[in-house]
């Protein structure tokens, strides 16, 4: 309790958000009810957005909330509700598949964790413990530089000392345009693929052929 005042509360919030993200990700894995899976995923991704805010990327954090949680997951939940036959559908996986997956996943996790903690530059606390300078920096203003970078102008080039790194900092206009066209294509494609069709009745061959031809005549 003595350390309550002196502790670095930024670390506490990091552990809180990281714990929520990881625990609810595991909960997604373990539960068999699809709607609950979607719900746990929402919380996990929300905690990830919190981690983004803690790391100083407040624009990306807000984007994560808006696009991922507010868009993609709403889509997912709609899909879940449209495809759930009985209310709480559950499909069990064979234990053999579980074992194999856990072995592969576990070894991958060990490898990644070892790699994460081996490079000394990545756990150098001298910079991380300088809380005073951290609090000064805590006024993160990344929205406008990000927006300008997307239009091709990298305004953080001014601060960059190293000449080689400075040359490597390019604008992101081309990926931005490509992604917008990509989104348009996805919009059209997904809307076309998920259009309402008449259900195919598998009774007789001539009937099925007729009914399959009908949706294409619709539009």
């Amino acid at each position, binding site marked *: 309790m003595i350390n309550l005042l*002196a*502790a670095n509360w930024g670390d506490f919030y990091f552990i809180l958000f990281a714990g929520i993200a990881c625990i609810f990700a595991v909960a997604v894995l373990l539960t068999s009810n699809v709607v609950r899976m979607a719900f746990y995923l929402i919380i996990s991704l929300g905690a990830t957005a919190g981690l983004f805010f803690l790391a100083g990327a407040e624009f990306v954090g807000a984007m994560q*909330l808006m696009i991922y*949680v507010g868009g993609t997951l709403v889509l997912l939940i709609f899909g879940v509700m449209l495809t759930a036959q009985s209310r709480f559908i559950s499909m069990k996986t064979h234990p053999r598949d579980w074992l194999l997956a856990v072995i592969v996943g576990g070894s991958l996790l060990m490898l990644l964790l070892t790699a994460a903690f081996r490079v000394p530059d990545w756990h150098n606390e001298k910079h991380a413990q300088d809380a005073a300078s951290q609090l000064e920096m805590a006024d993160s203003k990344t929205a406008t530089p990000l927006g300008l970078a997307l239009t091709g102008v990298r*305004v953080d080039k001014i601060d960059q000392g190293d000449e080689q790194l400075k040359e490597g900092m390019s604008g992101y206009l081309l990926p931005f345009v490509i992604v917008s066209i990509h989104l348009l294509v996805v919009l059209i494609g997904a809307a076309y693929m998920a259009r309402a069709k008449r259900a195919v009745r598998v009774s007789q061959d001539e009937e099925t052929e007729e009914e399959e031809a009908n949706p294409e005549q619709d539009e």
Partner: protein
Amino acid sequence: MAEFINSMIGQEGATFGYVVAALVHCVLLLHVVAVGALIFIWLERKVSGRIQDRLGPTRVGGKFGWLQTLADGIKLLAKEDVTPDGADQMLFKLAPYISFAASFAAFLALPFADGWVANNINSAVFFVLAVLGLEVFGVILAGYASGSKWSLFGAMREAAQVVSYEIPLGLCVVVPVFLAGTMNLVTIGNMQAGWFSNWFLLHDPFTFCVFWIFFTCATASVNRAPFDLAEAESELVAGFHTEYSGLRWSFFFMAEYGSMFLVSGLGVILFFGGWNGPVPIMHIIGWADSGGLTGYLANLAGCVNFMLKATVGVTVMMWIRWTLPRLRIDQVITTCLKYCVPLASACFIGAVGWEVLDIWSPNHLHLGAAPAHTVNEKWATAPRGLPDAIEPLMPESEQHSKDGLLPESEQPAPEQAETAGVSQPARTSLLSASSQQEESP
């Protein structure tokens, strides 16, 4: 406040003050939301009564019945906790709190006066829009977990409606953000200081139209009539909150009234000058921009002003609810996709064109206090190592309508210019002091 508490602890690099400051802000905002809901429910009953040629509550708490909502709240607290049998228990119980949490979280970025904001996020507009979009989860989960067809239909319709109306809402919100040059709500509010000619509403006719489209989309976004088929009393019993009673139902209601106040407040800051009144009384007296007690009182008056304006917005929403008939779901989506989106896009192009062509607007008069609150990022004023094609373009976007007629009472600004050792006559900012001090020309 955080630094004060931190210095009181006396240890180096203490961060506990931030936690305490955050808690205090959260508790204050919780009071705003809860008491606001109380007042708005009473106001709704009175307004609806008067529109329907009756009186509304008149017994509890004197002649005007202003304690009626409190009595209703006590009754709701005492109700039996009923959950339907076929319901998914955990999701059923969690759903109202998710809705309320999303509605409350957006208040964290909403400023009530100059600097009176829980968290001065630099991309506050975006954050508010993002968090408002999370309210739909509570609705969907409530509809699904209730285990009844009517709830599910109501929830699906509402989710489709809210998600569809986020598009024109975003388009409408972008226009004042573009005019201000920042997404920081405190800066946007400060830019409209002075007489009402400084309000973004009066910047050009396109922005004027955009406000009305924003109001329509905001009404649809919070599921108020005429877009309230999710809770349509005549069709779906009560839509997604059919199975809810007692305190859980009141959480949904608090979320709804909280969201109404929030989008109303957002519209007020973006278009109606925020806490700056139509008449700049505080500037005329000289209390604004001064430190100490008078500065605090000026900010307090601004806060009261802001709340009054937001309440007017909420009252107009209530007025519309009890006047217009309800739209069908296909009419709702038609309104969104066929009317709101093209209109908002056209007005956006018009407003952008107005600004780029530098056509005259009442904002350029700068009547009243000077809006010398520039959006001063250090890379915009430091000597640039940028390619030559970009350099001439950059200053112009900052200079327009932002050069200072410094009022007499703007004391902090010359001090900052001196301490930073930079002589910049026109580009001062009351807000981005830290970015100024980091400049190294």
